[in-house]
């Protein structure tokens, strides 16, 4: 079957809709109490609608850059192209060499053999610092991962799995960075420091939370601990070892970092004003600012970067950086604020129920590291696409 853009978009649309319908049916089946009909219909329609729009926009832009070329290849060609795209810049030439040779190979079995063997070769091209250095770094990473679980678990039992996973993932990223690049690089220091600080703060507040409330460990079961470790390690990876396509544009990460700081301030404000008496003149201003801020924070950087860079890719870079910066910052705010709130009235930070303080840990994971990035990235992708589209129209009138 030959893939076209329209076919790919159609399949993606139905996949998203089907996945959401199944997921939401399970949610409704286990919900107690059931939501009202209006609410249920809104949740059934709005989220997948936004995701479908965002996914179709991503596919449209991807297709115009690489998709059309990829669709003209056979499967071995696509496989090798994907492997070559993952090569570090200094080895790209060799990837292109293998791709060019594959074009000379005739016959389906021979092409498969050549492509698979070439993919294998891309995995074993000599690393930047040589194999001994890589082996040493890998050994240190394995030792650190092995030690992290028991050492941290002795001090904070609830963090044993998290510590092992986070150290392992961070170690794997270090090994990968050493293999791919001869020297460390930090293309955007300020956003990188912000994200790294957010990750460090997230770990610190989790440790403090579990030290103060050891029983809360039951709200961080192994799957949740693995998820927390994966998200925080991923954020760290984007910050200090960002892939080439994420670090190429300096404007996008800076816009995203500014947006993340605004969002963190908004988040803190929302938490702190909950239940307080607000002076009447401020009520109207807050009624406008509070609902619009989160939408603007995700939408605006992607739109602005897309417009300034005259490309969807620039907007997408801002989108990824925004989500990456916001996740650890909001998580790092949520936990200490939830402790404060619980000490006041015994409620969770969501303010709806009297519950064990540990439920805040689960809520922080779901909201800050689950719902926020999914919805935020969706809005940001739409912003990036609109920014890029508008710049296309502006180009013919651009006097430069």
């Amino acid at each position: 079957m030959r893939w076209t853009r329209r076919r790919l978009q159609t399949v993606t649309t139905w996949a998203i809709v089907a996945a959401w319908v199944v997921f939401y049916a399970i949610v409704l089946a286990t919900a107690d109490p059931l939501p009202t009909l209006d609410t249920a219909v809104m949740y059934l329609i709005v989220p997948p609608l936004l995701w479908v729009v965002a996914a179709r926009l991503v596919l449209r832009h991807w297709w115009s850059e690489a998709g059309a070329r990829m669709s003209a290849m056979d499967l071995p060609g696509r496989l090798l192209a994907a492997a070559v795209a993952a090569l570090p810049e200094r080895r790209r030439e060799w990837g292109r060499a293998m791709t060019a040779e594959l074009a000379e190979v005739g016959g389906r079995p021979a092409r498969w053999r050549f492509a698979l063997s070439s993919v294998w070769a891309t995995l074993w091209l000599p690393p930047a610092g040589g194999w001994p250095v890589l082996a040493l770094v890998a050994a240190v990473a394995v030792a650190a991962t092995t030690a992290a679980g028991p050492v941290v678990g002795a001090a904070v039992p609830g963090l044993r799995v998290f510590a092992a996973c986070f150290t392992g993932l961070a170690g794997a990223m270090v090994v990968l960075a050493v293999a791919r690049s001869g020297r460390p690089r930090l293309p955007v220091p300020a956003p990188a420091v912000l994200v790294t600080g957010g990750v460090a703060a997230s770990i610190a507040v989790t440790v403090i939370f579990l030290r103060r409330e050891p029983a809360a460990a039951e709200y961080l079961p192994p799957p949740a601990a693995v998820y927390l470790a994966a998200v925080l390690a991923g954020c760290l990876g984007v910050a200090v070892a960002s892939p080439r396509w994420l670090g190429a544009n300096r404007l996008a990460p800076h816009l995203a970092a500014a947006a993340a700081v605004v969002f963190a301030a908004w988040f803190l404000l929302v938490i702190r004003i909950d239940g307080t008496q607000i002076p009447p003149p401020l009520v109207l201003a807050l009624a406008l600012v509070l609902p619009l801020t989160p939408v603007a924070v995700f939408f605006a950087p992607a739109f602005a970067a897309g417009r300034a860079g005259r490309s969807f890719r620039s907007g997408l870079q801002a989108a990824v950086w925004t989500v990456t910066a916001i996740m650890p910052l909001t998580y790092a705010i949520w936990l200490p604020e939830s402790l404060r709130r619980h000490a006041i009235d015994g409620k969770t930070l969501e303010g709806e129920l009297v519950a064990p303080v540990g439920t805040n840990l689960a809520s922080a994971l779901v909201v800050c590291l689950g719902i926020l990035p999914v919805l935020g990235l969706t809005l940001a992708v739409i912003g990036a696409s609109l920014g890029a589209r508008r710049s296309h129209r502006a180009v013919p009138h651009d006097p430069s």
Partner: protein
Amino acid sequence: MTRIRRPSAQTTAVVLALAEQPTAWRYGYELCQQLGLKPGSLYPILVRLADRGLLETTWDTAVPAGRPPRHLYRLTGPGRALATELAAAPATGTAIRRPGPKGSPKERWQGA
């Protein structure tokens, strides 16, 4: 007396194949077919040879329309010297002992 690790049999075969026509540029696929090597073995060897200055590369742009430019390879001066030494040395064991000035082709190969 310097202890020099002899290149692997596959590397030796690649170097000697390239040395058959030292001035001719060769394609990767052509070398694969000639030596019966898979690209997964050949390309890492070519990369190591190039990293050590034993192999030079260029792009062949005279390809049929619609095809990408192909990568071409041939030995450099030190690469040819290494080929001469490999052709002369008996291929016994994984290490050989030989006196030699620092920076000789075999020393360049060390650690590959």
